[in-house]
């Protein structure tokens, strides 16, 4: 669609003349600090150095560069482990300090959203238990999963609004022997990737100028507690969240638009559990086919567990019906890691992905046959008992 930029530029200019708008929502972080001042909880400060990013209504959010406690995702670890590994690999590539805890619990939010199981107190207690664990480690939480991230922000609202809930959860944390802590910011890993995108671009070793990318923004990132998501006037005129899209542009790939970008990936929380055929149909007919028809991308990038798995793993069903599918799907962390020279199997673990990613790798200039041979050698070493597991040294060998 041709967009004469002067029309839109004139609107932006007029908007600037009108002056700043009053945000329609209160800044909940102020309430979080007020509760700390009343002695209700500890607020864990964002460690220095941090980067400022702008959220939907123009407020500044602090994104810690390093010294982060990594709240991993059940679905990433279980289905697409290269997702989390890529996030860690990116931290290591920048020489950043982080903590990969072994005692983090699931947020239990998928059950909550899908089936309305559990209850408010239990959900909030799980969140505060994890925040307490992060605080005790001295590291600041960075949350890998979009569902956990969105849910924790809802929990924060509930805890701020309801003194009785705070009392209930504080009692539970006391019994667990955990401190009662609310982080100053609730940070998703994709916000960190967004904030660090220029650093990744500087370390890019592949030319991505011929790679066309469509982006699926995750519902639980930008539709839950909407005022806390990152927006940037330079990305779609500040009209949709800038995470992922800005990373694509920074890495030198081509950001392509499609009309159903706002729609869910099809996961739907409940649907993937009890109406999976609907999920498969929605993911392929409303998302992948529309992308192919309108943008013909080489890859779909997204930033949540359920979105990667649903968009990727639904395509086999549509392929059986000769539908127009076949677009590889991965997270922007995997894509950025590949661009910076990460191993497609040892680090990004694309062999866990369902849709054929090899044409993409070839187009990116990655010799996947040689990389696969290296990975098979690794497997032989594991099989022979020479090694028990792969290490970071193996990954970067």
């Amino acid at each position: 669609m041709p967009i004469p930029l002067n029309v839109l530029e004139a609107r932006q200019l007029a908007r600037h003349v009108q002056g700043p708008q009053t945000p329609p929502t209160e800044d909940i972080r102020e309430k979080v600090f007020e509760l700390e001042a009343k002695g209700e909880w500890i607020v864990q400060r964002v460690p220095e150095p941090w980067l400022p990013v702008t959220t939907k209504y123009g407020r500044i959010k602090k994104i810690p560069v390093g010294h982060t406690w990594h709240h991993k995702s059940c679905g990433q670890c279980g289905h697409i482990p290269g997702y989390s590994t890529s996030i860690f690999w990116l931290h290591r590539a920048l020489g950043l300090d982080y903590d990969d805890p072994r005692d983090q619990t699931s947020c239990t939010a998928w059950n909550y959203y899908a089936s309305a199981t559990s209850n408010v107190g239990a959900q909030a207690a799980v969140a505060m238990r994890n925040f307490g664990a992060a605080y005790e480690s001295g590291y600041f939480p960075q949350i890998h999963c979009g569902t956990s991230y969105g849910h924790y922000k809802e929990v924060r609202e509930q805890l701020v609004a309801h003194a009785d809930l705070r009392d209930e959860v504080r009692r539970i944390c006391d019994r667990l022997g955990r401190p009662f802590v609310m982080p100053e910011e609730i940070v998703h890993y994709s916000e960190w990737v967004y904030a660090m995108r220029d650093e990744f671009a500087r370390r890019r070793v592949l030319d991505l100028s011929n790679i066309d990318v469509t982006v699926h923004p995750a519902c639980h990132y930008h539709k839950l507690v909407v005022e806390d998501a990152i927006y940037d006037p330079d990305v779609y005129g500040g009209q949709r969240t800038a995470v992922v899209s800005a990373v694509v542009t920074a890495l030198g790939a081509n950001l392509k638009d499609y009309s159903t970008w706002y729609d869910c990936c099809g996961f739907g929380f409940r649907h993937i559990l009890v109406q999976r055929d609907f999920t498969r149909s929605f993911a392929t007919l409303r998302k992948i086919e529309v992308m192919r028809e309108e943008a013909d991308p080489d890859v779909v990038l997204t930033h949540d567990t359920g979105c990667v798995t649903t968009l990727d793993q639904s395509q086999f069903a549509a392929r059986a019906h000769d539908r127009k599918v076949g677009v590889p799907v991965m997270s922007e962390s995997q894509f950025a890691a590949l661009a910076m020279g990460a191993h497609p199997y040892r680090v990004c673990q694309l062999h866990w992905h369902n849709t054929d990613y090899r044409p993409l790798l070839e187009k990116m200039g990655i010799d996947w046959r040689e990389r696969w041979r290296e990975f098979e050698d690794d497997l032989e070493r594991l099989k022979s008992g020479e090694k028990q597991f792969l290490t970071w040294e193996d990954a970067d060998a």
Partner: protein
Amino acid sequence: MPETVLIVGGGPAGLEAARAVADLGGRVVLVERREVLGGTPDEANYAALTPHLGSAQEALDRLRAGVGRPEVEVLLGSTVTACRGSVGDFTVTVSGPDGAGREVGAGAVVVATGFTHFDPGRETQMYGYYEFPDVITLPDAEKMLKEHRFVRPSTGEPPRSVAFIQCVGSRDRRIGNEYCSKVCCGVASKEAIEIRRLLPDCKVYIFYIDMRMYGYWENQIYWPAQEQYNVNYIRGIVTEIVGKGDRLLMKGEDTTMGRPLEVLMDVIVLSVGMEPSRGTREIAGILGLEQNRYGFIAAPGEPMDPISTSVPGIYVAGAAAGPRDLEDTMGTAGAAAARALGVIRSARPAAATAGA
């Protein structure tokens, strides 16, 4: 102290208040931020006024003529920057175009700083106003209609289908604007009629939650739009606008039929509501006026006294106090003028007694 009323804002409310003060024998200092008088109807290029489609320009010219008299001193390119004193004896600092400050003595103040149209980019994603040139607002449409044309901004070609979306920035609890802006239903219907007159082959739709046609607008606009001009009113909630090829795909729900809605349009007009103008927000701080939760100037004596603010001797006229149509605007302007002069005249003997 002469019977001077300082009026802030040179739109319809300020102009009418100034004329009324002068008619009643008072003196006026009228402060206007822009270099011309006329306010939002002038700045936003209003073409025809609702409901009779009379010329907005001619109406503004009449209002401007009303202040062209020696009792009214007009300070253009000027803003109020400070105020001290109290009822009967305010000293207001006015900053002129050269930045120099001037002190004006006034017995009372009328605030007529008006509204601004809701910025549809604030409710991001749904409307794509900053993404798609063919998504426009009521004032954008008004500007084209003033030039007797209506085209797709992206191509310059006349559209085949146009949709209005009502309640953009109004009656919306999610964004904190729960109020009805009162005029958008009438203005959208008026513009729909004008588009149908200009482009008889163009289909025009209005997607609404409820059509709110106050008073006589029902017969003056609503029924003629449907019966004479075949404008289609569809009760539905539009949730999103996306680009589809070179057209706009409007998604939502048809709440009469109870089914999802996806239709292609060439131009989509957002019926943006009213919010307090920047001037209204700023003057409230300078004069120490209470604002309501939406940022408009509060009138604590409503409904029987919609004029008096929280500060004695300072009155509010027009849409600085909330969503107002022109009828209400002109009415409150006259009332504010009368109250301002009245308070000065009743204060003078008391002041003289106190001084003696």
